[in-house]
């Protein structure tokens, strides 16, 4: 087990967005988290990556207790997180966006005397291929399509080689074709690491997921295979509709 969330509670406005939640993710697992709007899915990712401090509970990632750490420390122990809206550096090229995401030698002097070495070049090539942008390395991020920006942001995380990848609505705003390509891409990217994906697109979830966790009102409502979940009357009532 790489991630163990126990009895996690996150409150704001006197409202429990996450309420006594338990969740565990295995090594190499690709887990999808679905659930109604406001169920606490994004807040769960916020708590894991250190953006929001839980009021109670524990988040174990390998040997680290993440609830004691601040955001950059969580990143450094191997957790990468993509937010709902793409955030790339629009005036930099794809190549530059990937380069500045490379975590090695980020001190003042090494940044000033930055030089592209072979290791970095190989890493950029590998990541650019994985996110289908190898033909676009010289293009400014601002000129990419919405879907390509989402891919670039995933690529920026891959430059850090995270052991746990958190993706919040990665196909939002993508066309059906881009969604299919993203599903294909994720199968490659998630190999050798653990991934948590939040999504509402059920067709997409079906393409990628092994186990699906359904959240509702800050708790886990159901967990199982896509087939079990889609037939679960509680899930149909609060989430899928009929």
């Amino acid at each position: 087990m790489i991630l163990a969330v126990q009895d996690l509670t996150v409150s704001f406005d006197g409202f429990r967005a996450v309420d006594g939640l338990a969740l565990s993710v295995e090594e190499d697992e690709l887990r999808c988290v679905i659930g109604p709007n406001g169920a606490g899915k994004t807040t769960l990712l916020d708590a894991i990556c250190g953006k929001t401090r839980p009021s109670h509970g524990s988040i174990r990632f390998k040997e680290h207790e993440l609830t004691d750490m601040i955001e950059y420390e969580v990143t450094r122990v191997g957790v990468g997180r993509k937010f709902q809206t793409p955030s790339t550096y629009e005036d930099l090229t794809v190549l530059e966006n990937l380069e500045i995401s490379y975590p090695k030698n980020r001190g003042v002097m090494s940044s000033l005397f930055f030089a592209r070495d072979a290791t970095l070049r190989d890493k950029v090539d590998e990541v650019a291929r994985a996110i289908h942008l190898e033909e676009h390395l010289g293009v400014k991020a601002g000129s990419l399509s919405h879907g390509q920006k989402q891919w670039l942001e995933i690529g920026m995380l891959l430059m850090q080689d995270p052991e746990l990848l958190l993706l919040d609505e990665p196909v939002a705003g993508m066309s059906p074709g881009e969604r299919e390509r993203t599903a294909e891409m994720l199968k490659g990217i998630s190999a050798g690491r653990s991934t948590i994906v939040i999504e509402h697109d059920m067709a997409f979830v079906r393409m990628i997921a092994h186990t699906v966790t359904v959240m509702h009102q800050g708790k886990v409502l159901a967990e199982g295979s896509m087939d079990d979940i889609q037939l679960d009357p509680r899930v149909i009532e609060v989430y899928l509709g009929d």
Partner: protein
Amino acid sequence: MTEPVLAVEGLNVYYGESHVVRDVSFRLEEHETIAVMGRNGMGKTTLFKALIGLLPVGSGRILLRGRDITRAKSYERVAAGLGYVPQGRMVFPYLSVEENLLAGLETVTDRMVPDYVYDTFPVLREMRKRLAGNLSGGQQQQLAIARALVARPAVLLLDEPTEGIQPSIIKEIARTLNTLRAAHGFAMVLSEQVLSFALEIADRFLILDKGEFAYEGLKAEVDTAKIHAHLTV
């Protein structure tokens, strides 16, 4: 032929140097819903921004009930009967849910949030005193739709309205839009990636490819495979 509620004639829109919308024309009849489909980067959002006045029109005309609004300010277009749900929510994060809805009523004399809005989006009634910025992404999207609906527009422009919304509420929104359209008689222009939602509410489909209309079909005769092919190539 009756006068269309919205007529777009030979519209050209540019983003700096790039010519994004190319000589686009269409007529939207009273009570009609048109879905503008197309891959990303084909000009859908640019078309919507030009219709609501967030981007200047290079050439061509936009007529709302016969009135030329091509050079009108956005707020004048809203007062004249256009409603707009922008892509990416754009709610006011530091106003409450209720204040966001009242902002949508700026152009209306009777400034009450109608019951049907809260009935369609019960979560907004429940959370009406909370800051919009504290809602989840999907709840903010529901708020953006509700904010456009409260002013009872003659033409509602919806740019990817279902992004981030849970499946059951997408179905509910489709039902509500159809009910409201029957009751209040507005027309809609919709951009949507979720084909099932578009099929629920649209009467006619236009496919935008590289800024031009590449395909048009009525719902009855629409070729789903053809639309899908256009969206996936």
